[in-house]
């Protein structure tokens, strides 16, 4: 295992002042923590006029006075009106560019020999199959810069985009949403350990992990979760999340997989829309059919949420919304933003679990990569900004 930046950072953290290490070790329960907080706050207590709270209140009061003053000194100012409508998209777009320009992070690559990839679920299978497909396409791997940020994963991919230039300000008409097709749900087979029971709200459908898993047309992009109360945040954590959509791979349904670090969450489509005039697509996924290991679980009784992704005519995801479907949990992820371009592979391929595990656990060399065209290994030379990372 190479000494990655993460490991060096970890070592540096370990060598901070010993007093800090010892202090943290000694504070090992809630009561001691409370005492420590009290003691430290008492040491750093400032006069009331220097406290952040006082400053905040003062700033708010000053703003209020200023606004009142302007209102009374400029009559009619608020009567002129402003016809410019700031749409959510344009606001988000501007904010996105400003926010993320300085957040561009270098690509990171799988560390040779580090850890071992064991695929234990359909979610992981879907994700790594997509990664493999994308990294084996020269066009996709040529996108190696970032609007993709490091996600802290052990097996990631380096993707690059300068950002889409498509104008997102005009909200397209919502295309027709198809109803979920339940007629194709599998009947009981020897592989299904649980027969669907019309009286139950929970059904399990299994996939054989030894059988090839077929994915058709992969899209991958990143979103940022900032709402700590949200459903997805509870599954994945806050921050940058990889999103993979693979089409018509589970009994005709498409699959979305979210991944942050070692956390995965996957669920199936609830509907798809397409506007032939604009070429835009709309995906609706629902948590009521989700992945658990190598099972698809259908549960209508739990709190369920939908995820709506809009893609433009160039297959670039530009909007991600979360909404409540049923049983009111109230944990809708708010303000989810798409923070990267979308990388697409039009191919359809099948992979087995063993094949993917073998692929990702085999160290790559430049000679091996030459035949395959592209790879995530640092020595591959796929990018001149590549570096070893965890």
């Amino acid at each position, binding site marked *: *295992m190479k000494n*990655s*930046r*993460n*490991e*060096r*950072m*970890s070592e*540096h*953290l*370990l*060598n*901070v*002042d*010993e*007093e*800090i*290490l*010892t*202090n*943290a*070790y000694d*504070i*090992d*329960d*809630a009561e001691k*923590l409370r005492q*420590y*907080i009290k003691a*430290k*706050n008492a040491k750093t207590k400032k006069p009331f006029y220097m406290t952040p709270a006082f400053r905040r209140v003062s700033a708010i009061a000053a703003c209020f006075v200023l606004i009142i003053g302007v209102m009374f000194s400029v009559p009619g100012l608020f009567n002129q009106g402003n016809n410019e409508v700031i749409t959510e998209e344009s606001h988000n777009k501007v904010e996105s560019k400003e926010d993320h320009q300085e*957040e*561009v*992070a*270098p690509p*990171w690559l799988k560390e040779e*020999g580090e*850890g*071992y*990839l*064991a695929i234990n679920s359909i979610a992981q299978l879907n994700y790594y199959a997509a990664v493999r497909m994308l990294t084996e396409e020269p066009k996709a791997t040529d996108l190696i810069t970032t609007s993709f940020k*490091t*996600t*802290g*994963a*052990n097996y990631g991919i380096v993707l690059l985009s300068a950002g889409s230039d498509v104008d997102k300000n005009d909200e397209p008409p919502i295309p027709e949403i198809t109803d979920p097709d339940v007629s194709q749900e599998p009947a009981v087979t020897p592989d299904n350990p649980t027969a669907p029971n019309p009286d139950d709200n929970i059904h399990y459908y299994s996939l054989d992990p030894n059988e090839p898993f077929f994915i058709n047309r992969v899209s991958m992009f990143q979103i940022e979760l900032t709402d*700590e109360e949200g459903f997805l*945040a*509870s599954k994945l*954590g*806050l*921050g940058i999340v990889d999103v993979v959509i693979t089409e018509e791979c589970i009994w005709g349904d498409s699959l979305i997989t979210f991944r942050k*670090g*070692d956390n995965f969450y996957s669920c199936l489509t609830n509907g798809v829309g397409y506007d032939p005039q604009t070429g835009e697509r709309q995906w609706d996924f629902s948590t009521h059919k989700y992945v658990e290991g190598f099972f698809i679980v259908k549960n209508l009784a739990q709190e369920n949420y939908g995820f709506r992704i809009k893609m433009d005519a160039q297959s670039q995801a530009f909007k991600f919304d979360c909404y409540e479907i049923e049983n009111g949990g109230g944990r809708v992820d708010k303000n989810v933003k798409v923070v990267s371009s979308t990388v697409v592979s039009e191919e359809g391929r099948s992979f087995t679990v063993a094949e993917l595990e073998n692929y990702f656990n085999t160290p790559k060399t430049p000679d091996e990569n030459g035949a395959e065209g592209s790879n995530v290994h640092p020595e591959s030379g796929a990018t001149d900004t590549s*570096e070893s*990372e*965890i």
Partner: protein
Amino acid sequence: MDDNRIIELLFERAETALNEVSHKYSRLYKGIIREVLSDECDIDECANDVLLAVWNTIPPNRPNSLTAYICKIARRIGINRLKYNTRQKRNTGYIVMLSELDDCLPAEEPIEDSDERSEIIQSVLSDFIRSLDPETEILFVRRYMYLESVADLARRFELDENRVSVKLYRARKKLKKMLEKEGIKV
């Protein structure tokens, strides 16, 4: 037993010294190793290696803080074992912890380490940790030095897991900004 007394026993090469170290610190070093490795046999072996390393390195070393010293030894032994093994379960605490540190890393090319650079970085990191609010400070150190999991931290300090995750996430972001501002490259 007081740490200084334990160190004196080690200098005197008294056999009881290791018993005292084990009695006082086994929970610490086994806990750290358990976050790195998953196999109980490996954990037990590494725990014995920690005691051996303490015996072999004190003297000549005379650490100011035995706690920190044992913590570092345990981590290094655990990580070396992880590297040696050809196959590990993916979700060891160490791997997860390392992956979280991506949030802290400035967007710079890595450069070769020197002792002087390392000292500067450690000084900046020490200042960063001291600048954190007390709760985040303890959570951050226990997570990234003692490899305690988010769930264990939440349980230990009677906090919500989500709160712990959010505090650590914000601390990592803050560290990244600080390192970029200082022009520190890792």
